[in-house]
């Protein structure tokens, strides 16, 4: 059973990241933009995990306990990204809801009070 080359994972990650960038640039609905940002975060998570798998055997060969920690580094990053993304979504949605209560619209182009 041939293993999947790491570059395939990275290309999938790049494609998803590009779709996320597309979403942020094109859409005006605040919630959809936020979802696209989450998609970008997920693409980066995938890249982390793929690289952890790629570097794993090399890192563990380098020795002992630090070798294990280094091999798992990518996956540990992903755990922290999960935790912080959860916090960020909660706060971001709270901001969007507060904004909606104030302006009755989710269009980000309407949020332009500081434009001069």
């Amino acid at each position: 059973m041939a293993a999947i080359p790491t570059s395939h994972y990275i290309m999938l990650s790049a494609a998803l990241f590009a779709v996320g960038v597309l979403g942020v640039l094109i859409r005006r609905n605040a919630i959809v933009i936020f979802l696209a940002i989450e998609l970008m975060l997920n693409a980066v998570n995938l890249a982390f995990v793929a690289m952890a798998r790629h570097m794993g055997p090399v890192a563990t060969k380098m020795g002992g306990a630090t070798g294990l920690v280094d091999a798992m580094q990518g996956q540990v990053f992903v755990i922290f990204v999960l935790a912080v993304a959860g916090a960020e979504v909660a706060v971001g949605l709270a901001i969007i809801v507060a904004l909606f209560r104030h302006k009755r619209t989710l269009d980000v182009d309407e949020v332009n009070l500081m434009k001069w």
Partner: protein
Amino acid sequence: MAVWLFDAAAVVLVACAIAAIVQRNPLYTALLMGVVFAGLAIPFVLCQAELLAALQVIVYAGAIVVLFVIVITMLGSESREALEEQLSIRPAGTLCALVVGILLAALLAGPAVWVWGSQRAESWPTLLSRNTEAFSAALFTGRYIVPVEMASLILLAAMVAVVVMIVRPPPGSNEKTTTKQ
């Protein structure tokens, strides 16, 4: 067999992501993104990160997207975008996204980067093949203890921030004798 599973999953994921971005109804966007987030567990499992795959489904598809869906169903029906304006941004935006994607793929997946390790990852040593134990060894012994505790503080700060921003006292309840909320 793993290769065609990955290829099928990759095609479905990118298709769902693009479909999510072009949807007019934000609820469809959220549901399709939920599919993408849950589907990302497949590459994670293929990378032998099973704990992360389960956590991805629990946290992203099972909590974050649920939060999005709740917010959309409470607010979203009044928030359709007017398609007539701002169509000029679309070609520029698509071009930017294409450039970003191609640059990333070329830089990261190109042959110049793979200095260490082989293109096809070898099998992992025994401890690493048990993903949960490897995680606990990495997270709780050594340099990641402080970030773990800080992550819990971040989550606490986020909870406090959300409650402060969202919870409003009901109208006319500024007297001292109101019941607890």
